[in-house]
């Protein structure tokens, strides 16, 4: 299935604070997540502090984008007009090699081929949006 932008407006992330920084990196073609400077754990979604050690010292570090399918759902009836032309579409949670998980629409993966552990990669597109593709 393909998931190109459709005519109806899709919701645009509000992108405040750390989320705004995350999306700004995406627009530069870079997938970056926060990584705790104290205990080294990567995190997403972005937050002020590390949930493991409590440290507020961290840096944006670049992810390989490689990982595997953790779970998914294939939506047949969308709850939003901006996705009406995309159904059915798969919203995948991928677990990346750095340990973080990321949610994105599948790109070029047939719904029937989705399985737990399927090797995938995150593709960041020119508009800063990102998709999960097989590798």
């Amino acid at each position: 299935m393909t998931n190109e932008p459709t005519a109806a407006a899709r919701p645009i992330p509000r992108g405040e604070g750390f989320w705004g920084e995350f999306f700004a990196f995406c627009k530069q073609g870079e997938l970056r997540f926060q990584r705790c400077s104290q205990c080294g754990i990567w995190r997403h979604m972005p937050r002020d502090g590390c949930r493991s050690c409590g440290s507020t010292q961290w840096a944006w570090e670049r992810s390989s984008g490689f990982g595997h399918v953790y779970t998914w759902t294939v939506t047949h009836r969308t709850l939003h007009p901006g996705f009406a032309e995309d159904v059915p579409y798969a919203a995948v949670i991928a677990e990346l090699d750095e340990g973080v998980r990321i949610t994105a629409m599948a790109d070029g993966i047939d719904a029937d081929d989705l399985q737990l552990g399927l090797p995938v990669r995150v593709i960041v597109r020119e508009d800063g949006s990102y998709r999960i593709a097989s590798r």
Partner: protein
Amino acid sequence: MTHALKDQSCIVGVGETAFVRGAGRTVLSQVAEACSRAIADAGLVPSQVDGLVLSGTKVFGEAVAATIGLNDLTYTASVHLGGANPVAALQSAAMAVTTGVATAVLVPYGWNGYSETRISRREEDGAAAAQDAGPVAGDDTMSQAVLNAYAPTGVFGPVQFYSWLATRHSELYGITAEHTAEIALLSRANAQSNPKAYMQGRPLTFEDYMASPMISSPLRMYDCCLETDGACAVVVTSAERAADALHTPVYISGVAEGHPFPADDFESRADIADIGLKRAAPRAFAMADVSVADLDFAQIYDCFTYVVLLQLEALGLCGTGEVGDYVSGGRLRIDGELPINTHGGLHSEAHVESLNHIVEAVRQLRHEADLQVEGCEVGLVTGWGNFAEGSAAILRR
């Protein structure tokens, strides 16, 4: 050591409105009606109610108090666990009456789930939804994840969030449509005995279930609960005061809430199957000093069939991954080993968060239910909401 709240408080009054699609009146009006009925059922007058615990922000406590005449409140609070709210609110009410902060606490919930906030019609809202947060707009505990991570991927509502949990579980353990269908079918069968049930008179077959459209895999339309308008309320007093109640008091033997970690974001949990009830249930059972084997019935929060399956495992009724076998063979039917959702649940009675489950549990324990579990003494109610928050109450007569 005995838990300080064990059996120290009782539900002494229950009330509800009709459950409809298109109430044609405000949520406040319906909540007020349910509250007045619950207060009368308890044998009290409004001025004797001095506590109010709200679920979420559908109505303001000040307005409820002014509408029905709660003229000297000593305790107000609200809880924020989505559909797990009413059961969690019982914990707050139990604390208030046990400590003496209040003597009679009202726990109401109501909404126009069909005529106002209907999630399944969200796509018709068009531009408004596109620019806003979708179905959870204004719900700050979840809005960051939904706005920034989920909505751009076409994920807006519970039927999609919970399908992430369901897909992984079903792939790991071989759960099939036969297993989820059992929940939908038993709910609808039980509702046929309940005159208040929205689906009374409308039976459901396995063929109907399988023919219903896929919404977001693996959940079909009949895996989803009803969207209805209506309200319920219960009144909680100390066990001592409950001796004067009009009806058989129903003791809050155990009650607990549980939060997944983190609660505002599904995908960063160490295990996405870390649902709140896994934490709440052991606490509630320990407090009540009972085990699942002691339960005569259970009202399990059933926003979606698969959510029931996940909770059955979290309660320890069967091992992880064994729920498919567990629900087979009629075990959860009215004449089975552990009848569940005897009123029809959110699937077939109405969606009033978990408060209609609590009302039904009270009626069962008073031995006044439409579809009575004969001789029942102990029952369980669970709540589930937001990103899989959980709550559990063990009630006895």
